[in-house]
């Protein structure tokens, strides 16, 4: 038990360091790259109104899906996730990102819970429930990533 805790303590720092680099990539792609950003940064839209995309995004979607393709948030994301070449790379990145983020987040959460829950049974329940939730999220997350663009 003591050894697995030391390993997890070590892993927590490793995953944390990895997450810094992965988050920079994630934020850049989702928010700042004019072709790939699904949440285009300069706009607040009225209720349920679709944002307008920059020229780079429109050109990218047309190049990938044909001249009739419309630049909607879904299509912008699919430039990466439905591409025959880059999809594997991006899906791989996203799955790794999921695993690392979930391990880091739920290990941290368990540290916090262990500090405030004193009853051993309560700790066990909290631990089991939280890791079950993490596993569930890993499964649905992987499902979303893998099947995207099929």
């Amino acid at each position, binding site marked *: 038990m003591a050894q697995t805790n030391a390993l997890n303590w070590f892993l927590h720092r490793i995953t944390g*360091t990895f997450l810094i680099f992965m988050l920079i990539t994630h934020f850049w792609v989702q928010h700042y790259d004019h072709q790939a950003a699904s949440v285009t940064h300069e706009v607040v839209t009225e209720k349920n109104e679709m944002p307008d995309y920059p020229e780079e995004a429109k050109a990218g979607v047309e190049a990938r899906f044909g001249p009739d393709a419309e630049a909607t948030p879904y299509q912008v*994301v699919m430039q990466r996730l439905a591409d025959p070449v880059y999809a594997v790379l991006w899906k791989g990145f996203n799955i790794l990102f999921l695993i690392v983020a979930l391990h880091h987040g739920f290990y941290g959460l368990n540290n916090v819970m262990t500090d405030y829950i*004193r009853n051993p049974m309560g700790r066990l329940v909290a631990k089991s429930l939280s890791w079950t939730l993490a596993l569930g999220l890993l499964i649905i997350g992987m499902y979303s990533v893998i099947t995207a663009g099929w």
Partner: protein
Amino acid sequence: MAVDTKERPPATQQTDATAEQESRVQPYRIRTGMFAWMMHRLTGVGLVVYLVIHIWGLTALTDPETFNALIAKYHSPIFKVGEFGLLVAVAYHAMNGLRIVLIDFLGWSPKQKKLFWTLGAVTLTIVAVGGWPSIYALGEWLLGPGSMPTLFL
């Protein structure tokens, strides 16, 4: 997480108040390191909650209509405010976490005061540069189109 150094001797003194404390919640003694640690926990728990919602939301990727509706919602004012708050939490947690890693793995504890303020400045830069698009979008919405400077967008 809190490392004792020459500058900061171990906190061995126990006051009567803490000795008699039988409650579940210990009153913390708040110094810079303790404040950093508390904020790390708070942002950490917040980020786990966000992570759960975020992964759950991404199930929308299986259907184009649902996904478009979800992203359209992300462009509403309240989500822009949330986006900025998220960046603040992530930037703080990442930079304070980096500080912990540098102290634990590279033994930078003698330099920890300097490290604390340097990373604080880096965090502020990340928040200012990364958060500008959200502030810009909110400003344009509140004050009318063309009222915000474009800067580097």
